[in-house]
């Protein structure tokens, strides 16, 4: 059923997907290291979820809209968001750094599950504006994790999307752990089966298989484009690193589990396939590695040289229009700060 959705993926295209995954993993590992070196306040690792993110992200078309949670660095990359633009969020200089409309990639949502309702509303708008119904239709995809499936937001999003036929793909990366809580703490039923109760299709895909993720997401987006949404996809994968750099997974899970999942590493699988089928030679793998190294070096260089925000920025963008009260507080505050400078206290 899904084969036609990846019929166009020849060896060159598969090498492209491999390169995507290697680059985002390298960006992820470099960022994790920079957090450990004190250059980032926090990092949210995607390690192990590259196939789910690259496969689904590459299924999107330019007119589509993606709503991420906070771990979707791979999807961001497929939407043309420069990895460097993600770093402001983690270096504590910015809450979001990209033009979300131009990229079709909404700012990261930190609060668990909130974006599911926002995405549903966005998809309803696509439908109301008549942008759904044929091959050129628009669709929305929203990313969330297994933990978020227990939030009211997600359930209400399912209800609304169902009754309004919203063109939204609910893409759940079930990475098995919501910080310390296993998926059994969120559901008795495999998560994809929940869709049935809401009246739309749900499907589980091997989230560590980039081609499977690409095929299933293309199918689901096509359904939505043609007005047959919504669709729930459960990408069954594994969070190989911590929830964030503030977390220590050795406190609650066994290393045996990680060892098992290492055998399903999404990048190694494609590498083995390419090598075995002659789809890529050693020179290709070395070139990708060299590109990843320079990608990481550029990332570090950019990160180390990011400017700190000026103090008056604390008053910026609290409201859409200028606020006399905040203008007054800003003036008062800047005068207060200049008082320190005059008194030599700074």
């Amino acid at each position: 059923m899904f084969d036609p959705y990846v019929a166009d993926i020849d060896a060159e295209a598969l090498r492209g997907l491999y390169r995507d995954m290697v680059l985002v993993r390298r960006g992820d590992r470099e960022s994790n290291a920079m957090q450990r070196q004190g250059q980032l306040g926090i990092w949210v690792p995607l390690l192990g979820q590259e196939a789910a993110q690259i496969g689904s992200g590459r299924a999107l078309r330019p007119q589509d809209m993606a709503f991420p949670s906070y771990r979707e660095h791979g999807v961001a990359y497929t939407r043309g968001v420069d990895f460097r633009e993600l770093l402001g969020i983690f270096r504590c200089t910015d809450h979001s750094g990209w033009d979300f409309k131009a990229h079709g990639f909404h700012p990261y949502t930190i609060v668990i599950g909130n974006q599911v309702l926002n995405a549903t509303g966005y998809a309803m708008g696509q439908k109301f504006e008549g942008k759904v119904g044929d091959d050129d239709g628009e669709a929305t995809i929203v990313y969330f994790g297994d933990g978020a499936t227990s939030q009211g937001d997600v359930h209400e999003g399912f209800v609304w999307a169902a009754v309004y036929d919203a063109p939204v793909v609910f893409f759940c990366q079930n990475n098995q752990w919501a910080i310390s809580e296993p998926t059994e703490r969120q559901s008795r039923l495999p998560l994809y089966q929940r869709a049935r109760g809401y009246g739309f299709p749900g499907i589980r895909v091997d989230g560590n298989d980039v081609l499977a993720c690409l095929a299933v997401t293309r199918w689901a987006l096509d359904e939505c484009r043609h007005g047959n949404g919504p669709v729930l996809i459960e990408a069954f994968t594994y969070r190989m690193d911590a929830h964030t750099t503030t977390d220590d997974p050795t406190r609650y899970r066994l290393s045996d589990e990680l060892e098992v999942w290492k055998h399903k590493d999404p990048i190694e699988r494609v590498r083995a396939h390419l090598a075995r089928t002659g789809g890529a030679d050693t020179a290709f793998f070395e070139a990708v590695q060299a590109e990843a190294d320079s990608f990481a070096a550029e990332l570090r260089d950019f990160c180390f040289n990011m400017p700190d925000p000026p103090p008056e920025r604390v008053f910026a963008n609290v409201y859409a229009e200028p606020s006399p009260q905040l203008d007054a507080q800003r003036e008062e505050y800047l005068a207060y700060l200049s008082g320190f400078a005059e008194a030599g206290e700074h």
Partner: protein
Amino acid sequence: MTAVLPQQRTLTYAEAVREALAQAMEADERVFLLGEDIGTYGGAFGVTGDLVHRFGERRVRDTPISELGIVGAAVGAALAGMRPVVEIQFSDFTAQAMDQIVNQAAKIHFMLGGAASVPMVLRAPGGSGTGAAAQHSQSLEAWFAHVPGLKVVMPSTAADAKGLLLAAIDDPNPVIVLEHKLLYKQSGPVPEEATRVRLGETAVRRSGGDVTIVATGVMVSRALEAAGQLAAEGIEASVLDPRTLRPLDAAPIVDSVTATGRALLVQEAPQTGGFMAEVAAAIVESSAFGHLRAPVARLCGLDVPIPYAPQLERAAVPQTGDIVRRARELVTTW
């Protein structure tokens, strides 16, 4: 001194909370905990620690990632005669649970004509200073203090973290306990016994005749630090800590302002609609009004979401130096 002092030793604020939970659970089978990552993980801020090993998973329950569900279930358990103690991982996440807190927990006793009560405690860490940005750093006490039917406490010391929590667990009403992330690692003397700190009693942390500083949460220790610096300049400040915001014990504040004639009210939360406006009203509506030598002053968080950048985050809420400057200005100008 011949009085026998209760046995005390130094604990961190987080350890004091844990000890209160343990003692409450030991004393009363009905007390149980529910929250996210409070079991094996020991809580996002390590507060519940090893309690799951001591009391088992039945009484230290890791819940689905579902704040509305957590509070709704706690309300139901309380109605059934249990004494649930909820941990909401960050106080910001109470936004997810507000319907159950405001429209159920706070109203049930009233709407059932007293036929049932909701003896539930909701603990949640608030406050900025940890680089956790706008959605994980708020000080939301005014939201809860505005709701009749709820009680609201903000412990500022390790001893109060224990004593107020024990009193909250005893209380037949829903009590919101707003802990502070920056205080969890601060240490102080804590009684070994399960000593209660009664709800609704303002603490006088320091006495001085020139200015009354009223502060809550992490601002209490900053106010005390500021008072120390002011004393070196010859300015004597009283520092009062309401501890319970609802019901507010205003009498000690009124008495202190009557004596000093000057009031500086310090909160971390943004100024507009903040709890210190209520304290200011309590002062000017009282007999202290006639004793005021200066306008009542507030020193609050800026009216902005808590910024992410560390230097902006610090700028957005009062620091010790700001309290010193504002108090000095009050005393020297008026």
